[in-house]
């Protein structure tokens, strides 16, 4: 068992200059057999392993990660958490996650710095206004808090927004979900890793999956850079590389992989105490605890597995940011990066069994997977352990592309694609 983090452990360790903290997780070599292997050591994969151990009493679990944990999209997003999605199925899914977020730091004994600072979604034209008011009502019917703000209320809630009627895309109103907010992305991966590890999960880093061995319709194991691992159940949470893994098992997914970019500015004093998103002009911004503005941009139009994006996307986003927030005009940008996101045709995820026995996929989160991390892991663990979906993820099966029963969330996914 890991030592519990507390004010007392902090004081105790300060006497030894913080040089004797216990390792947060082991660094084991893979065993030859596991009951379940999770492919992908990001937030979703680690959360899945944690809930498999905690709620389904499975102990012999491994998480294999080709790089280091949380080094993929978990460490590359803009950390926004919200659940204001339109359809009932999505509302259930994302609010399930949001409810877990609210107690996650206590549960994991790891401060994930969840901050319910509110998320605004701006409307810039009549259609936006109608669409966002519809979403406000849909959210409320599903028991999700959502407010509609007119232009004057927008200005009161977030004074730095340029609410002049003379800009190219004037602000005509906004939704506000007060329970929404941000969290510290790395802490989510580290917290889940530490908690899963303390229950006996093996977290194996620098271990890339090279092949999936099948026997007929079932799974025999995984070829990895650290040798063959025998298992009968594989849960894949590999985000942008889901298609590559699926291909190893002879499966095709309805997914396209594209880089999604984000950037941060130099640190400044507190200026924006909420998250403001805008689908129409395609820019979203919040301020980190270090004072940097965290700015989200769009995806590139074409398939790419590079963890960077094109300059024109950054340019478009910053144009939008400057029109909405003229006060930022002299800020310099510090860093820019991209993450490879897995986009489904209906902008909703797949948490599902597949046609191959023992192979499960959790993918297609596209541009908005971070917010769902705890809920996604919880439901994926249920799906793997019981070999059937939980009620909340039943709609997100892979067969919906044959049945036509899509969960179209292009409106609520903040990034147009």
């Amino acid at each position: 068992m890991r030592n519990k983090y507390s004010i007392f452990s902090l004081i105790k360790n300060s006497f030894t200059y913080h040089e004797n903290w216990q390792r947060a997780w082991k660094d084991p070599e893979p065993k030859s057999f596991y009951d379940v292997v999770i492919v992908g050591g990001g937030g979703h994969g680690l959360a899945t392993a944690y809930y498999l151990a905690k709620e389904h009493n499975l102990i012999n679990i491994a998480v294999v990660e080709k790089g280091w944990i949380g080094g993929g999209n978990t460490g590359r997003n803009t950390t926004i958490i919200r659940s204001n999605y339109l359809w009932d199925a999505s509302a259930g899914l994302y609010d399930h996650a949001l409810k877990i977020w609210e107690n996650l730091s206590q549960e994991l004994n790891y401060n994930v710095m969840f901050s319910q600072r509110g998320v605004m979604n701006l409307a810039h034209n009549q259609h936006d206004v109608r669409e966002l008011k519809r979403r406000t009502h849909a959210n409320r019917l599903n028991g999700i808090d959502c407010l509609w703000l007119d232009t004057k209320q927008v200005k009161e809630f977030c004074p730095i927004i340029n609410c002049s009627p003379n800009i190219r895309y004037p602000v005509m109103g906004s939704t506000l979900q007060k329970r929404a907010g941000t969290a510290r992305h790395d802490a989510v991966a580290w917290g889940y890793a530490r908690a899963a590890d303390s229950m006996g999960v093996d977290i194996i880093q620098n271990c890339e999956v090279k092949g999936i061995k099948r026997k007929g319709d079932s799974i025999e194991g995984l070829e990895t850079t650290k040798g063959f691992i025998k298992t009968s159940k594989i849960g894949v949470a590999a985000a942008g590389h889901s298609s590559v893994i699926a291909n190893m098992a002879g499966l095709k997914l309805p997914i396209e992989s594209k880089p999604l970019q984000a950037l941060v500015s130099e640190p400044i004093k507190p200026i924006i105490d909420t998250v403001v998103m805008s689908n129409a002009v395609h820019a979203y911004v919040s301020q980190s605890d270090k004072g940097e503005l965290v700015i989200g941009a769009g995806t590139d139009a074409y398939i790419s597995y590079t963890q960077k994006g094109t300059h024109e996307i950054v340019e478009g986003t910053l144009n939008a940011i400057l029109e909405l927030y003229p006060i930022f005009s002299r800020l310099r940008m510090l860093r820019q990066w991209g993450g490879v996101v897995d986009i489904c045709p209906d902008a909703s995820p797949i948490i599902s069994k597949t046609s191959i026995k023992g192979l499960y996929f959790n993918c297609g989160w596209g541009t908005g997977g971070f917010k769902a991390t705890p809920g996604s892991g919880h439901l994926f663990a249920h799906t793997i352990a019981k070999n059937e979906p939980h009620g909340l993820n039943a709609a997100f099966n892979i067969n919906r592309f044959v049945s036509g029963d899509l969960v179209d969330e292009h409106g609520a996914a903040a990034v147009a694609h």
Partner: protein
Amino acid sequence: MLEIKCPYCGKRSQNEFSYGGDAKIKRPELGKEISDKEWDNFVYYRDNPKGKHSELWHHISGCRQWFKVSRDTASHEIFKTAKLDEDL
């Protein structure tokens, strides 16, 4: 940013072009009975390789012609471009 060689105009910067997706998609024959699975395949499933990919591009701010491009999705190297009736 990519530099794409339009088969009609020559090398131009990427921002003159728009992306048109997987070049291998074929609409099922009109009037032919097909299964839901085949239709699903046509509507939703696209090649998503890490590596060589054949795709359509549109020279929208240029000659406005559609053409095919063979590109590596991991390195962004463009191997070849071709007119629609030519092979890649």
